[in-house]
């Protein structure tokens, strides 16, 4: 099965609304990263987390290693937030960064 399971796979939001994305891990994740892939294909680093919480502007992310999940909260969604959000985790003894399948977010006016 998937080592990093992301949900939902797709999401449509109206401008100004809030939502949350989630990743569940079947590996013993030690660090988690969240990325935004923009329509040009570039990967933008959003968060790098050890267990705990970080906030940056309208984005907030949490990583709970004991419960094996991470969340990304988007507040007051804007059109430029559209794109594919990936979470990825390093876990186990191989130190490889494993990606989830992504959440395609569309923000509409």
């Amino acid at each position, binding site marked *: 099965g998937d080592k990093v399971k992301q949900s939902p796979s797709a999401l449509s939001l109206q401008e100004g609304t809030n939502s949350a994305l989630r990743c569940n891990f079947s590996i013993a994740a030690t660090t988690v990263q969240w990325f935004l892939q923009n329509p040009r*294909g570039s990967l933008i680093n959003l968060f790098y987390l050890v267990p705990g919480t970080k906030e940056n502007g309208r984005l907030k992310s949490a990583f709970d290693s004991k419960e094996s999940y991470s969340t990304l909260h988007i507040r007051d969604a804007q059109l430029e937030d559209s794109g594919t959000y990936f979470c990825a985790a390093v876990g186990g003894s191989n130190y*490889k960064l494993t990606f989830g399948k992504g959440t395609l977010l569309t923000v509409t006016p």
Partner: protein
Amino acid sequence: SVLLYQKPNRDICQSGTSLKIQCVADSQVVSMFWYQQFQEQSLMLMATANEGSEATYESGFTKDKFPISRPNLTFSTLTVNNARPGDSSIYFCSSRADNYAEQFFGPGTRLTVL
């Protein structure tokens, strides 16, 4: 953070030919990796590029098909040999300072094989 540059940013090649993708880091990095992403799919780790020695390949990727070189701590190349339409995807190089550090990605090379 680490800045990674890739060249070319896109290419179109004919089936059966070979293509080389270069990746340069703006500082010395311990670990460099190559990832493949098919359209509307996730990123898949292809291999870890080891300085001065052979790359370590993941299941489904071979050195004959995707030879990787890493002559120093800032540079790596990925070659796609005998390219096929099924190799059409985006190839990303990536690096991090150590096993527990944040990982960064280059802008990607979009390859189309006709």
